């Protein structure tokens, strides 16, 4: 079973259980985890689902492929790191059980 822990900038955290083999973004949004806005609904068009994969998990999750990297690098006003991913592009499965993810301090991109 895939349990994922989301850590907020203020170091509080929540652990969520993945029911449906969904993406990291859907898991966060479905569990009302603050800070993953996903304003385009998962189409890799808005970069407001940006998060940091905990470094020890990066191998298993993988770094962002080229398209996603382009979207990430276009983000302004938020620190993009080597372990940055767009959570709508991270598919969850058994191999990611225990995954730890850090929420970014801000989600610019499409303004509400």
């Amino acid at each position, binding site marked *: 079973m895939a349990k994922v822990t989301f850590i907020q900038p203020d170091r509080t955290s*929540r652990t969520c259980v993945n029911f449906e083999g969904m993406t990291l973004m859907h898991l966060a949004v479905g569990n009302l985890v603050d800070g*993953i806005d996903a*304003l385009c609904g998962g189409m890799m068009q808005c970069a407001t689902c940006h998060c940091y994969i905990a470094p020890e998990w990066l191998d298993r999750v993988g770094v962002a492929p080229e398209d996603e990297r382009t979207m990430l690098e276009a983000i302004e006003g938020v620190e993009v790191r080597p372990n940055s991913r767009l959570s709508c592009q991270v598919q969850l499965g058994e191999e990611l059980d225990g995954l730890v993810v850090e929420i970014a301090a801000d989600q610019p991109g499409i303004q509400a």
Partner: protein
Amino acid sequence: MASVALPMLDGAAPVIGHLAQFFRDPVSVLKRGYRTRGHLFALNLMGRRMNVMLGPEHNRFFFEETDKLLSIRESMPFFLKMFSPDFYSFAEMDEYLRQRSIIMPRFKAASMKQYVPIMAEESLNLVGRLGEEGEFDLIPTLGPVVMDIAAHSFMGREFHDKLGHEFFDLFRDFSGGLEFVLPLWLPTPKMVKSQRAKKQLHRILQSWIDKRRSAKLDPPDFFQTMIESKYPDGRPVPDEIIRHLILLLVWAGHETTAGQVSWALADLIQNPAYMRVIRDELATVMGGSEGHDLGWEQAIAMEKMDLALRETERLHPVAFMLSRKANADIDRDGYHIRKGDFVLLAPSVSHRMEETFRKPDAYDPERFNPANPDAQIESNSLIGFGGGVHRCAGVNFARMEMKILLAVLIQHYDMELLDEVKPIAGAGTYWPAQPCRVRYKKRVLDASAGADIATLARAAGCPVHS
């Protein structure tokens, strides 16, 4: 490699093909296709070839190829009549994304957290109306509550207060335009009513927009924000699009949910063992409270309720069919699909396939419990809300409101079903047929508090709270 067409279902009549049977009872036709032809088969609807694909592999293909090999824009013509060709999934991709960006903020976690008290309030309003004991009919009772929740959450209290019986009836008529089978130019009473209701709804909404423009609300509520929204190039969003967006939110926010929550309640009433599991969970989460202070953290903690809702979604998917049009020739599993053919997924059938779900006709919410080593949570197996990029934007909102409405009703009432629950054959979305009456009697609540959040979080395995 020779590629053949998908095997055609038998029993096609001359000219109209399977149209008449499909019109009467689409799910039984789809089930017959699976029974006699397997995972891939075709139907003939008045000369249109509909290719049906079943199972998680094909579901994944369908969702991944949407907007590539498969088009959603041309697959649901009824949607064009109910809304417009430049609207939402049916507009050009850029326009679709722009419009989507107007409503998606409504579904952010921060927004969602504010809806929970609204959902609790509307559910408790229903309890107030129901009183101590009596009978209610599922859809006519729960439908308006669900619509009220959508209007109140998305558009604000003022909007909600303006909604009356007239609005609900207009929406019912408007929804009758969800016609998949018959040609849309056919002036059936349902189509005529739907178009008339559409005009009336647009008139009403425009009058509210005009009034708001002349007397702005400050600070703005969502309605105000919507009216003032602009495209990235600074152009204001046209009133017509705003009206469509409002109608979409309120329509989508009740059409399917009313059916799903009715099924969910009927399922639980018919399965007393799981009703007890839900009651135990409510005792932990809500204690003996009436629910006036129900917050999002308690809602999130209702995991058994989550499982029950998923099992209902599996057994009674209200959107029983998903469709696309092939943009190009497609070859799949040795079969050939021609450009211009339709491609269909059938949740109502694929949710009941034995190889995907053990004992598929049995009500067993625990089959989804990830704590079970053989939990059945393969991705793309449960597709009641679609999948891929066009997956229902309101999935979390719908699940949250169903949870809360059910929690409040089950907390307050002992209930039994008076009528047999049957789906309406041939309906656009698959509701339980009416009447489907519930007899209810008030339970005594001792007003004790539920568990505190830290306890709930510990129980959920959160490492910080452990």
